[in-house]
């Protein structure tokens, strides 16, 4: 192999650079996200495990069903009925009323930025209550 030494050195340097996030943050892992679950409502539309892994597909289905097929009522696997709405059901006062304490926790931890709230309005969180107008 021509210039074998140079190539191998190059590969090694490249690998080290690629691994930057690993060795740079080693030992300084941020705290695990802490999700505050709703107090009043004990049960989500589907079991917790399913929601954890599949809430995005579920929301995607919800939005296509309501927007495109005019089907706005969702029946969960155990027969409960829900209005398919991120703003008015998921984030209603009794459920995930605080985006910062629920959605943002994991999303920030994993570094995903869903664009749901570019349009959909998250509920006002109490600290801004004094500013509310009529």
């Amino acid at each position: 192999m021509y210039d074998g030494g140079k190539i191998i050195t190059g590969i090694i340097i490249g690998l080290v650079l690629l691994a930057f996030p690993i060795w740079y943050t080693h030992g300084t892992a941020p705290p695990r996200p802490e999700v505050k679950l709703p107090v009043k409502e004990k049960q989500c539309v589907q079991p917790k495990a399913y929601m954890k892994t599949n809430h995005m597909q579920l929301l995607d289905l919800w939005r296509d069903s309501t927007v495109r097929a005019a089907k706005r009522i969702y029946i969960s696997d155990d027969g409960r009925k829900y209005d398919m709405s991120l703003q008015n059901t998921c984030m209603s006062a009794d459920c995930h009323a605080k985006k910062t304490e629920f959605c943002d926790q994991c999303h920030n931890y994993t570094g995903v930025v869903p664009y749901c709230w570019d349009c959909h309005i998250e509920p006002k969180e109490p600290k801004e209550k004094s500013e509310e107008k009529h």
Partner: protein
Amino acid sequence: MGVNRRKFLKIAGISTLGVVAKPAADALAVEWLDKRLGGFTIPETLLHLFHRPTGFTPGEALTAKRWAMVVNVKNCPEGCKACREVCHKVHNVPDIENPRHEIKWIWHGEYKHVFPGQKHEHIEEALKKIPFVVLCNHCQNPACVRVCPTKATFKRKHDGIVLMDMHRCIGCRFCMAACPFGARSFNWIIPWPRERAGTMPRFRKDKEPPNPEFPTRVKGVVEKCNFCAERLAKGQIPACVETCREVTKKKGMKPALVFGDLEAPDSEVRQLLRSHYTLRRKPELGTNPNVYYIV
């Protein structure tokens, strides 16, 4: 002769069968497919393959075969803009000062602009001043739907409403070029500024926070009147019609906006259409608008 007649009948029978069978089979196939897909397209069905749609239309929803509106322009109280205000408020339509970037779902136009082909010098004096309520015509044969490359705008099969899926719109603005009524608006600037959505656009007049029950929009999507599909689902008539009814009732007038099922012979719209001479905007283009005007 007998043979000839038999032959003739045979041929006639087969050809009739052919003529009838083909569309019938098509219709059946389409209906069958529609049922299987539950209002979705094939790609959408594939996307949700493992999360089978289990939803249904709410029971209290108002339904119709073909929603339509009648605008009785002379019942429009002078200076009244209630329909526009309420529509833009419930749907979070931003109030943008620059007319170039304006978003309009429903607005008031002059006769000469609403019916440009019908204007002439000696038009009835009253018509010159009356504001004509203009909104999306929810055409039966919508050009905007035909041109959309992503099906972001589509016509609901069951009630004829032409809707926008603002999650899907890529912002090519082909629909704006296709719409012969100027009913579509593009979000040229960030309509509702968010913390991380970049800079706050100048030219904003909104003082009030958005209606929390309805989403806002992002920049770069096209939007338009949705015939209050979200209200119909809750059993309410469109906001503009409801408000118009209230306002005109207070003044002891008949409503200027009437909403109903065009396919139901005894609906309010059908009664009005039966008893009045009505106009539609640019009927010669064949888009078949579902908004009628009594002048």
